[in-house]
């Protein structure tokens, strides 16, 4: 089973990533696999009975507004970073967490490297599926890259 970083620890990942061009038969969908579906497919399959085993992944420009009515039930939203310099996912995460109060797992996937983990975490990601050539063990230290956290209302804490 592939491994990810979740809540600051290495964890096995039961979720199967379904690509946009994959054909999903009704049998697949009815099975007991944990499926991470692209947004269009997820929208088609909203009646899949096992919601606890159905997550959704977003491309940076996906109209995620469609998810809003379902946020309370969604176990996992993954946001894809095609290249790590594409920062749209950071704002999506911020919106999902702050504006829309999403509380489930929020996972960064794709071109995700050690050097971004601290900042991704700060925007609300709690799970990280690193680029294939990256060893998750070596990235765990990234959570401690800075002692600093942004403090609301004061830009940053003054005189702490």
């Amino acid at each position, binding site marked *: 089973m592939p491994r990810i970083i979740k809540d600051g620890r290495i964890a096995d990942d039961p979720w199967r990533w379904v690509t946009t061009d994959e054909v999903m038969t009704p049998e697949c969908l009815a099975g007991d696999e944990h499926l991470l579906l692209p947004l269009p497919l997820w929208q088609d399959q909203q009646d899949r009975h096992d919601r606890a085993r159905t997550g959704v992944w977003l491309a940076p420009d996906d109209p995620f507004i469609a998810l809003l009515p379902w946020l309370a039930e969604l176990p996992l939203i993954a946001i894809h970073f095609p290249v*790590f*310099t*594409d*920062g*749209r996912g*950071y*704002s*999506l995460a*911020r*919106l999902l967490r*702050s*504006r829309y109060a999403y509380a489930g797992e929020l996972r960064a996937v794709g071109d995700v*490297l050690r*050097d971004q983990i*601290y*900042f*991704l975490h*700060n*925007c609300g990601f709690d799970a990280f599926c690193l680029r294939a050539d990256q060893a998750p063990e070596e990235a765990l230290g990234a959570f401690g*890259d*800075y*002692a*600093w956290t*942004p403090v*609301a*209302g*004061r*830009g*940053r*804490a*003054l*005189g*702490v």
Partner: protein
Amino acid sequence: MYLYNATDQRLVDDRVIQFRGQMERFLAGCLSEDDFRPLRLQNGLYIQRHAPMLRVAIPYGTLSSRQLRKLADIARRYDRGYGHFTTRSNIQFNWVRLEEAPEILAELATVQMHAIQTSGNCIRNITTDQFAGAAADEIFDPRPYCELVRQWSTLAPEFLFLPRKFKIAIAGGREDRAAVRFHDIGASARVGEDGRIGFEIFVGGGLGRTPMVGKLLKDFLPREELLNFFEAILRVYNRYGRRDNKYKARIKILVKELGLETFAKEVEDEWEWSRGGPNTIEAATFNDMEAFFARLDYPPADPHDPAYRQALQYNRAFARWVERNVARHRVEGYAIVTLSLKKTGIPPGDATAEQMEGIADLAERFSADEIRVSHEQNLVLPHVARKDLLALWQGARALGLATPNIGLLTDVVCCPGGDFCSLANARSIPVAAAIQQRFDDLDYLFDLGPLELNMSGCVNACGHHHIGHIGILGVDKNGEEWCQVTLGGREGQRGALGRVIGPSFAAEEIPDVIGRLLEVYLAARHEGEVFVDTVERIGLDPFKARVYGEEHAAHH
């Protein structure tokens, strides 16, 4: 001045450790060139034409003597004994060694400095009016707000990978000395009718390949909402700004493509929910912040000091310097002094380690330990008692920093160009030098009056050529260096972009071309009318006719 607290210090220290690790991984081959590039750029480290270059942030252009001495020390130990002050009030070291960069950052951290926000697609170093806190026309001091925005933006996690770089300027004066209309966001001090403090907000201005004057996004933004509102703008930009073409990726293109109204609606929608939220700035925070910058202890100084009066009367060189390089201070008996980094033949904005140390001494003796960097690439001593001006002038003269040319033709704003920059189409420093040499007669320069000449070595416009009264842009014509000339650009409330006068010239011709443009002005000007106003009044045609000949002008 603002002083780091433990949190600030920890942040820059942690950053040094992080970058040291990244550098080690890169040198050991564990981090590819592609993966390392954005990381080194996030720490101001570029690879230029001849060597790596380190750009160090000078937040809102403010330095203490101690910091300036450290910059001198770095110039001497890690570079070739000098540094270059840029049009964004940063300093660049042109000859550093890649592997020594973490060491330099560690040195900087000891004086509360860093190189974050000087490169990459993030919120760049915040800029302001170089006379902030001292100017006679100030509505309020913008630096407390600059510092709040600096703290919010330094590692703003959400905005580290924007479509493109993002520049914010905040001005506090009635006169705009921070070019707020030429930034991605520009904020200009306002006091509402009810006495509330806030800002007028411009968006989508900028120079570069597609120059635009910023558009008014909000008449009055209450100060406590500054961060919420900026965040709303940045979030809209981060999500919708173009990423497919780096030449169309700045916010100005997004504003243009959406239209100001639609853009404003998106921003309002974002602001709607964050308004009054956790990023709202508390009154106590403003007070804490203002306390860092307030200077209530000006010892009384006699504006009519007899020795000063006498020197003004009998020492012509001194009087000239006072006329050009000294500006009014908001406190009676005080003055703001600009030290010229535009001596003929020295690349504009360059200062040697010895000069930096000398300036640090002067600031300590005469200016409450404070130095400012102006976006015209000069250094400013903001709080000098008038009675000290003569002694200061003598000190500055000994350092080669008292050229009385601030705001005159030879106060050329100029990017490093082809001598250093790998993006350049042409060298700009030799052109600036040729202009300074050609027009070095002070009587002539003083008679010409205020005239801003800006030069960039390529369309990226680091030399702000679009807003020079005369702008010069280096272009490449079959491998040769040519220059395009614009007229009529200006900064400030009446900010405008210069217009191209016609086909470009070989670089060597530029002094002659300028000579002809000046002849037209001298012949046409009204009493007391400055160059750029004459251009506005009579239009480009007379200038074209003089430069290209009547016939040619008819076709352009």
